[in-house]
């Protein structure tokens, strides 16, 4: 630091500009015993940011279930892990890179993948899969121009990083909704495999041990990313306005080749037992990594900034300490092993430098120079003050008295015919085939992928012992917006349903809570209600939360995003060969609806197409009945009794049937009893919005029959198989036979008379279904 800079102490104004509040600045002064200097203030401002300190969410997160019989590593380490048998553990975690992606989608998404992969190999697990969860505005037309640019950039960025590093992208989800237009979401989840006994901790230990930084050199990229970008609302200028480029320098630039070498180098270092502990550098760079390693190990750390390999000349010490340059790791090494560690770095062609040491001082000390003789103390902060003493805030939830979100503009006239309605749903951006996206990802490298995208409701990865892992990631934010508590329960159930459809039992859960500004009472209400639902659902499913992330302040000039608690769930099945498929497999198989399905049009995709307002609340969910149905379907799939199993989600029963037809191009013929259809939707009619307006929902169908065919809700599965197998399933869970597999069309007819008339039969050729379902292709043309 130049002498004049070290003499001029930053002011309160500087602290405010870095995102601290006046009270927080006062507390920093108190903890330091004096006003902090530039370096110290920079480090405090990052570690005390929402992104690093979880200051508005930590109290809520403490209510979540984190323990269970499969849990090997819970929240607090770089990633969580569950036992998957045979001495192996599966590490997994989801993280967001929302604001960087809104500013620069390609690099934002790419480095999001890079960051989550480092979390996985930091605990000693080899990354085996990536999934992504994306949210954008409406993509169509003139208004969708920027959305298509963001989508294209984010998908390319995810592919670029995952493909180049040799980790398959095996699944994911994307939704398009107006509230994400100015604040897209890019969440990435990764899974890794490790020997259970060799999982690595990030806790620094052993005063006298050496701190080695390895990987890419350090530059000026991403300075202040955690505070400026990740912990504040975006303004319009950041996301397409004239000042868009202002925040570009806070977005990091990724290099998957560097990370590939870093990954192999890290795993070889661990395999050779050369490390005491290992930590990746993510948000807030070296500042956060060093402070967290010291905090976990209850030790001190000293760093000589002049020993850090730099990418550019003239960097200030504070810049070096807060740089978010990608592809870097920090490890603690016994002095006798330092040479071996540096030699291995050389083998993998990554920089390695001994930059400091573990001390027993309980302080993070930053020094100039390269050795104790020639150095000057640049900054000194108590580890506890940096990591643990950031104030936690209570949020003040209050249910909003008026709707927060505008309804989407109608794209389908209410009262359209059943065929037209089904085709419109299949073609709408939230339901259409994701093929144009997932074809840009390598889904098969590493030779574990048993089910590729669109073959099953969950991705399936074979393990060496013949068992398999299954993984699903999901969240319908619009339903969470309608009812944060029940919507979140439904999200968790949806993930578990996806696992059930491939025959897998949930082992553990990760989550990324994407919300608006928690200092506003209505967002605080969404957040607290959602976390309440999340905890209850994970407890009911015995799928504890082993790690996760929180992304707040997701608001643009036009308001907050839909509350989006993205859930990732990992499960296990005994025999990889019996992993379920979603599509009909065999002509002549019987088709049935299984489970306590109580569909409602409230907050459904069809209501969105009709331009209806979000309802105030969703119907109650019988979690226990849904859980039992999932168990029954899971058991039937796991023994190979069923030909197919598909969870009913967006677009309801009719869309689910169409999706089952599309997987292999096998048609289906179903005869539905009109009176039964009406009773099906009965259970959920207490919620307003189910055709109580007197307006026809679908021409030729009663309101209840419309809700039965196109309504949404938890607990429904379309299964196919031999009659006997469906009969057996019926002994554990409600099963209603719908028809049989065969032909080259989806044909539905109605028997008996419902209150709204007979319902006209309809038939759609597979080709017509496929054309509608392929609508997203245009976005990438």
């Amino acid at each position, binding site marked *: 630091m130049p002498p004049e800079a070290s003499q001029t102490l930053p002011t309160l104004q500087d602290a405010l500009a870095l995102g601290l509040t006046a009270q927080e600045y006062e507390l920093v002064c108190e903890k330091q015993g004096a006003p902090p200097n530039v370096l110290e203030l920079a480090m405090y401002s990052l570690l005390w940011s929402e992104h690093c300190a979880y200051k508005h969410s930590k109290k809520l997160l403490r209510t979540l279930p984190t323990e269970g019989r499969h849990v090997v590593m819970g929240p607090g380490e770089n990633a969580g892990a569950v036992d998957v048998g045979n001495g192996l553990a599966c590490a997994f975690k989801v993280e967001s890179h929302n604001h960087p992606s809104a500013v620069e989608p390609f690099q934002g998404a790419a480095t999001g993948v890079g960051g989550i992969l480092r979390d996985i190999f930091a605990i000693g697990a080899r990354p085996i899969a990536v999934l992504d969860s994306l949210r954008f505005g409406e993509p169509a037309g003139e208004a969708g121009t920027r959305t298509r640019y963001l989508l294209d950039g984010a998908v390319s960025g995810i592919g670029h990083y995952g493909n180049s590093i040799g980790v398959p992208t095996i699944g994911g989800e994307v939704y398009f909704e107006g509230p994400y237009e100015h604040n897209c979401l890019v969440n990435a989840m990764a899974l890794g495999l490790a020997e259970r006994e060799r999982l690595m901790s990030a806790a620094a230990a052993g005063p006298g041990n050496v701190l080695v930084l390895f990987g890419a050199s350090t530059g000026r990229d991403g300075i202040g990313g955690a505070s400026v970008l990740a912990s504040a609302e975006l303004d319009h200028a950041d996301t397409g306005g004239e000042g868009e480029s202002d925040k570009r320098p806070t977005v990091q630039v990724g290099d998957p080749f560097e990370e590939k*070498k870093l990954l192999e180098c890290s795993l070889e270092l661990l395999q050779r037992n050369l490390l005491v502990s290992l930590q990746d550098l993510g948000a807030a760079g070296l500042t956060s990594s060093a402070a967290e390693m010291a905090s976990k190990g209850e030790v001190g750390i000293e760093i000589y900034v002049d020993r850090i390999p730099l990418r550019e000349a003239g960097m200030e010490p504070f810049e070096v300490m807060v740089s978010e340059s990608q592809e870097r790791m920090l490890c603690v090494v016994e002095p006798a092993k330092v040479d071996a560690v540096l030699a291995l770095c050389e083998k993998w062609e990554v920089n390695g430098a001994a930059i400091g040491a573990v001390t027993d001082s309980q302080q993070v000390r930053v020094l100039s120079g390269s050795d104790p003789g020639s150095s000057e103390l640049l900054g000194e902060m108590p580890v506890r003050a940096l990591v643990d003493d950031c104030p936690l805030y209570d949020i003040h939830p209050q249910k909003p008295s008026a709707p927060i979100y505008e309804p989407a503009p109608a794209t389908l006239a209410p009262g359209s015919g059943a065929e037209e309605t089904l085709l419109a749903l299949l073609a709408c951006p939230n339901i259409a085939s994701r093929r144009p996206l997932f074809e*840009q990802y*390598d*889904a*098969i490298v590493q*030779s574990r992928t*048993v089910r590729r995208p669109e073959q099953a409701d969950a991705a399936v990865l074979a393990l060496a012992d013949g068992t398999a892992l299954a993984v699903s990631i999901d969240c319908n934010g619009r339903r969470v917006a309608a009812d944060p508590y029940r919507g979140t329960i439904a999200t968790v159930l949806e993930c578990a349903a996806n696992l059930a459809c491939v025959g897998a039992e949930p082992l553990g859960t990760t989550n990324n809570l994407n919300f608006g500004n928690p200092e506003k009472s209505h967002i605080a209400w969404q957040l607290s209600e959602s976390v309440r639902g999340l905890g209850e659902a994970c407890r009911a499913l015995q799928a504890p939360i082993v790690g996760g992330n929180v992304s707040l302040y997701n608001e643009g000039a036009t308001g907050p995003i839909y509350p989006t608690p993205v859930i990732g769930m990992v499960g296990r099945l005994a025999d*990889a060969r019996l992993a379920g498929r979603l599509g009909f497999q065999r002509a002549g198989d019987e088709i049935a609806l299984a489970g306590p399905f109580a569909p409602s049009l409230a907050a459904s995709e069809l209501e969105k197409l009709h331009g209806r307002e979000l309802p105030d609340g969703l119907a109650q969910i019988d979690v226990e009945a849904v859980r039992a149905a999932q168990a029954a379907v899971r058991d039937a799939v796991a023994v190979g009794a069923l030909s197919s199993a598909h969870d009913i989600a967006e677009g309801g029963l009719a869309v689910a049937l169409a999706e089952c037809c599309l997987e292999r191009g096998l048609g289906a013929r179903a005869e539905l009893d009109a009176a039964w259809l009406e009773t099906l939707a009965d259970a959920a009619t207490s919620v307003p919005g189910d055709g109580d307006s007197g307006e026809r929902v679908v021409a030729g169908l009663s309101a209840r029959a419309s809700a039965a065919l196109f309504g949404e809700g938890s607990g429904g599965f379309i299964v196919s198989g031999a009659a006997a197998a469906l009969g057996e399933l019926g002994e554990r869970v409600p099963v209603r036979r719908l028809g049989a597999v065969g032909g080259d069309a989806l044909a539905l007819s109605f028997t008996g008379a419902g209150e709204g008339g007979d319902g006209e039969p309809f038939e759609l050729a597979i080709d017509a279904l496929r054309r509608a379902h392929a609508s997203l292709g245009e976005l990438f043309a």
Partner: protein
Amino acid sequence: MKCGVLQFPGSCDEVDALQAAERVGEAELIWHGDRDLRGADAIVVPGGFSYGDYLRAGAIARFAPAMESVIEFAREGGLVLGICNGFQVLCEARLLPGALLVNANRRFTFRQLDLEVLNAETSFTGACSAGDRLSIPAKHAWGRYYADEPTLAAMRERGQIVLRYAPGENFNGSLHDIAGVCNEAGNVFGLMPHPEHAIDELTGGSTDGLRIFESMRLAVEGARA
């Protein structure tokens, strides 16, 4: 047959290739800095992004010490299989004619494809018959095969066009739907699709890729006998 599978910084499919080769014989990884091919009967240059694909896909890897040995091995008639990035490396090393350009759709694309065997008389397709269809996945961004017309005409004449994309499957825009080619001597073969990812019904969608490795084993053992 003993197969050596090269490993560069940035290789991604080397373990998959190793496992595929192990289905038909012995196999081991060979580090890029190592000149010793350890008595391998055949070499696989695997897929991935060697050296980050910097400069141009395969352009740096061709100068690796291990590649110098592979070039010599190929000149002496040793069998060399290049898959995807490996195909690009072999073209850069001039062991194979032509070049691979950016896909016509300009995107990285992953698809399970049908390929047609045009020449079943090579050391890499001996276990197939001409006209056979192989279901093998492809995944790449730079896979559009290009060579000038005189070169292509000569290659066609000599049977060097070994595999082509079945009708409708050529997403990358390769000239004449070319998916895989061999050198004039027939001992070096490169293809963009990934046979090592089609060796097991469970994870590969087919086992057709195994026939490429099986063909190599037959050729090696035939040469020995």
